[in-house]
């Protein structure tokens, strides 16, 4: 009886230790999964893939809730790690993914479920998170005494701050003008957000481009968040089209219309310019330098830009009445879904591994205790769950 009790205690200890380790290493940018799933779902909806978008919507609702639970558990169990990430140049900007994920989910509720109330609530929550992240992460990074060099500190993940700002603008255009009562005030606020996002992009991309071209660049530096270079301007394009669509008869918006149209085109052209560049760099990293693919939560940061490019191109085609852009949007939605499937399989493989490990621990406690490090074939399993070690490119 005593032996059985001690075995049971040993198992539960192992499980709690494992969960605690996972929470300790959890990357703040994990909300990128929700962002990516949400935007691919919206792309499917807009382009008529009616079988896929409800499926992705419910996966996103589940993932969003699960990630929040994990994040809150992390705050409770490992408050030091949570705060240390907050002041980290490499991991801190990852918290902005929570803003973007909230706003993307809000857009899904408005588009798919016709629930502007839920959309508005999520917009309010997203705005709150945006304010908290913007005025704590950047302040913490500014006042930190020990700072890394530019080459070590900056990475594509910083542009998530731009994505978050523009996501607030996009959802706001869907829910705010009708709710606020004063359309001009709503559009003034949302246009300010859009411009702030554009300004942040110009600041950050200058530093990133400088880091690309004037510092040593190894294959390990080119992590998936670098695709946000493109994703951030793609969402800026989408925000521009959303503003153009929300203007109505507002005199303020009417006067700004040509300016917004011009800048929206500029953002789209910049996003398009990045695609071949990032593809060539990706070929150099994986094809020439032979860096293997392995699952990492940061890969969600690669799926999101593909989905966003598809959505923004489709919306731009509608706004500027250029139907040929729909073909480009269709091509990119296929790429986005494929990238989503591959990344999702990687995540699923990690859960399968955990499931098998737990099953073995229960049947043969002594054997599974060491936790063998198994690598999945071809792509996408990093069984040792070392998401923390990849805190963005150094």
């Amino acid at each position, binding site marked *: 009886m005593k032996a059985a009790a001690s075995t049971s205690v040993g198992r539960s200890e192992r499980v709690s230790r494992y969960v605690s380790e996972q929470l300790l290493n959890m990357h703040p940018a994990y909300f990128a999964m929700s962002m990516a799933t949400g935007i691919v779902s919206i792309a499917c909806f807009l*382009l*008529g*893939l*009616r*079988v*896929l978008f*409800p*499926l992705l919507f419910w996966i996103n609702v589940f993932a969003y809730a699960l990630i929040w639970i994990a994040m809150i558990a992390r705050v409770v169990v490992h408050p030091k790690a949570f705060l240390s990430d907050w002041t980290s140049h490499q991991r801190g900007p990852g918290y902005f993914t929570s803003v973007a994920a909230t706003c993307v989910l809000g857009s899904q509720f408005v588009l798919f479920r016709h629930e502007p109330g839920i959309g508005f609530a999520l917009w309010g929550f997203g705005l709150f998170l945006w304010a908290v992240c913007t005025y704590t992460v950047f302040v913490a990074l500014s006042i930190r005494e020990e700072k890394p060099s530019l080459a070590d500190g900056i990475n594509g993940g910083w542009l998530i701050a731009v994505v978050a700002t523009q996501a607030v603008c996009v959802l706001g255009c869907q829910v705010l003008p009708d709710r606020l009562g004063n359309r001009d005030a709503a559009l003034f606020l949302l246009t300010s957000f859009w411009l702030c996002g554009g300004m942040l992009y110009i600041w950050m991309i200058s530093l990133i481009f400088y880091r690309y071209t004037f510092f040593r660049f190894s294959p390990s530096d080119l992590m998936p968040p670098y695709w946000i270079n493109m994703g951030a301007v793609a969402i800026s394009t989408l925000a521009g089209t959303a503003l153009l669509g929300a203007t109505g008869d507002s005199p303020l918006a009417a006067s700004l219309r040509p300016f917004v149209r011009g800048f929206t085109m500029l953002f789209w052209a910049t996003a398009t310019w990045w695609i071949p560049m990032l593809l060539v760099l990706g070929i150099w990293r994986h094809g020439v330098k032979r860096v293997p693919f392995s699952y990492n939560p940061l890969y969600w940061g690669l799926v999101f830009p593909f989905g966003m490019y598809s959505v923004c191109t489709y919306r731009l085609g509608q706004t500027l009445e250029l139907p040929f852009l729909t073909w480009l949007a*269709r091509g990119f*939605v*296929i790429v986005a*879904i*494929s990238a989503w*499937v*591959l990344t999702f*399989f990687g995540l*699923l*493989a990690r859960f*399968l*591994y955990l499931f*098998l*490990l737990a099953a*073995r621990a229960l049947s043969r406690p002594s*054997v599974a205790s*060491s936790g*063998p*490090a*198994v*690598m*999945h*074939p*071809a*792509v996408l399993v990093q069984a040792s769950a070392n998401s923390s070690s990849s805190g963005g490119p150094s």
Partner: protein
Amino acid sequence: MKINPSATVQQVDMWIPLEKIERAQAVAPVESRAQQAESMQRRGRKMVIAGFVITIAGVVAYCAATFAGGMNVDMGDLLFRNADPFALSTLGILGIGTLSWLVGSLTYLRGAMDADEESSQDAK
């Protein structure tokens, strides 16, 4: 069957320590388990790669069918009203690919865990 008497005598005289026999008997099944684990990994890897390829082919076929036909049917129409048999078959391909990936992953992971256990036991 003829027996060479001298050889028989030699074999009888030869003394083999009992521990050596036991060790030889113990090693044989371990080797076969290791081989089994390796073959599971090989099989699993093939199924995973096939699963990836089939799933992506299913995605591309489904999207192409939708875009080409201007199809605007949801899952309910496809499954219960057979609104578009071709789209349904592309979703079937997608499902087969996913299933192949799932089975392959489980096979591979089980094989890899078995192999890992074997190597850790050998190390002990």
